[in-house]
């Protein structure tokens, strides 16, 4: 997994609440057996017209969104299906940070397994960011995982919450399975006690 310490990047706003993982990556793309290459299918039903051509009205397709790596959106992002294809698609597309008032549980968890940083802020802070993104062309934010801050060049600063252990794993790109297997004697003991 990619390690994450700080990231500065361009922001794209997606002004919708309750964006579910069926929208992030529709089911027709879940048939692949690989972990990579999902980026081109991100938000497919919104990003494409019925004939498959790009829908230029969609936020991510606008010329000013090109190269964005920070997604700014509304509450309960990533609800619904547990498909990890959702963070795979976001990451493959080029996103490293998602900023929203709240995230669905499984999606939030899946992000950390894939080097993506979900940042929850208050509704007021998110509203402020939407306004700033609309006002400043090429709006940029910097996420600093070590300091747990999100800042812009125009005086915006917010600190965000993240569990210390998740932060530690993400900053060091640690592999969960290897970490757990360090405790394999405890798993053996647990199984033995129950047998």
């Amino acid at each position: 997994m990619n390690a994450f310490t700080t990231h500065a990047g361009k922001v794209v706003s997606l002004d919708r609440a309750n964006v579910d993982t069926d929208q992030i990556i529709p089911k027709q793309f879940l048939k692949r057996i690989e972990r990579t290459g999902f980026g081109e299918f991100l938000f497919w039903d919104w990003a494409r017209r019925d004939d498959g051509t790009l829908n230029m009205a969609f936020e991510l397709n606008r010329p000013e969104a090109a190269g964005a790596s920070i997604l700014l959106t509304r509450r309960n992002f990533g609800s619904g299906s547990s498909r990890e294809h959702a963070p795979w698609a976001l990451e493959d597309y080029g996103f490293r940070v998602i900023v929203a008032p709240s995230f669905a549980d499984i999606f939030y968890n899946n992000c950390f397994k894939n080097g993506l940083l979900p940042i929850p802020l208050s509704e007021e802070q998110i509203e402020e960011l939407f306004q700033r993104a609309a006002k400043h062309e090429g709006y940029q934010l910097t996420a600093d995982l070590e300091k747990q801050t999100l800042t812009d060049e125009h005086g915006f600063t917010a600190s965000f919450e993240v569990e210390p252990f998740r932060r530690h794993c993400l900053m060091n790109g640690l592999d969960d399975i290897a970490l757990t297997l360090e405790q394999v004697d405890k798993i053996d003991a647990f199984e033995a006690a129950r047998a």
Partner: protein
Amino acid sequence: MQGSPRCIAAVGTVYASTGPFVEVLKLEGRFDMSEAAHPRTLFEKLWDNHVVHAEEGRQTILYIDLHLVHEVTSPQAFEGLRLAGRQVRRPELTIATADHNVPTSDRSLPILDPISKQQIDTLSNNCKEFGVKYYDLNDVRQGIVHVIGPEMGYTQPGMTIVCGDSHTSTHGAFGALAFGIGTSEVEHVLATQTLLQYKPKTLELRVDGQVGRGVTAKDIVLYLIGQISTSGGTGYCVEYTGEAIRALTMENRMTVCNMSIEAGARAGMIAPDEVTYEYLKGREFVPADFDAAVAKWRKLPSDEGATYDKSLVYDAANIAPQITWGTNPGQVTSVDKKVPMPAEFSDETEQKTTALALEYMGLNGGESLTDIKLDRVFIGSCTNARIEDLRAAAAVAKGHKVAGSVSAMVVPGSGQVKKQAEEEGLDQVFKEAGFDWREAGCSMCLAMNPDKLDPGERCASTSNRNFEGRQGKGGRTHLVSPEMAAAAAVAGHFVDVREWN
């Protein structure tokens, strides 16, 4: 056991009436008692019984008793094992089936979609390579993973159960801690038989009293989601309690727990009781010494005086048959109501969300739900495709004909449900009424196989998600109970099933 003794006894309870429910606010406790002495909830017992290792500031390593695997969320996990040279630690605690991608037409024909076929073949090969039991398409026990686990008696009270699928919450109906996980976690469970978890908070959803005629488990759970919203359960493990929940059959309890994830909850559960034990008795994979197992299971229900982080109380008498009108399961109302308008919501985000949902659904707001006409009806999914669901739908459809403008299908949840339904003659009832009778699978619940809506088509569905495009790009889904779906198929529009003859 984790950390130091916690504050556990509530010193007071405040009943605050806030809108449609009574919220029981728990005040911080002031007394420290030893962990063992404090009354525990069902969830706490399940959690405590499975802690392999807990360390301050880290995720707990939780042991997993049963791991269910399906074709869509597992290929990358098996591939990860191969790349790292790892094995499946406990293949005998792992079972697999193909359900999401499978055609529901004639099983003797080859699968036409080569990518679907590849995914299903990949699962079969992975199971062979790693020694995992696989129920293939020709096995009568094949079906939706959340239907077959309980049906074969794999799902049992007191277990931790996971699957790379959010509706794993279904199994909580047995008094198990069951939840959906991502593919990286599937790999973690395969390799270690454990999972890293932060302990969720507990939320009690209590439904007092009795539901009226025509009101089903599906209506109860849709109503609850409507009350707390699709994110109201985020961070919580829900326990459903109260008279109306206890009165439900085992299959109905699964319907309720199935949709816990639609409220954002990590898991949903119902304490085991005689209904649970009666259902499990005699099933293929229950413990050989069944009575001894029951004696253990009887200790699981929440202790007298155990407290939840939050409790919400509802009255079953207020619940009418439910219909979703929007594009998430929280956008739901009673059959006798009108579709809401954006202005009826005070919150600006809700107004916007409602306007977007109405636009997608081809509704203006303000129309009576019973005036909404339908093109398709789908009876199926892990929410509502067990035998009791099919019996209930058949009872409504019997002696009627599906409206000429509607195309309707019934997809049993498993091969065994299909077989039993055929033994009872339900297939004949459906066929005579003009429903399509299919093979088992997820089918049009997520439309990954050829069963899907065309753009603009409107469907009454017994499944669990009405997201945009869920049943086919541009398709419009209204979630309802099996009874409501069958009645709508006959009438060609929604009807109040309480008035059905």
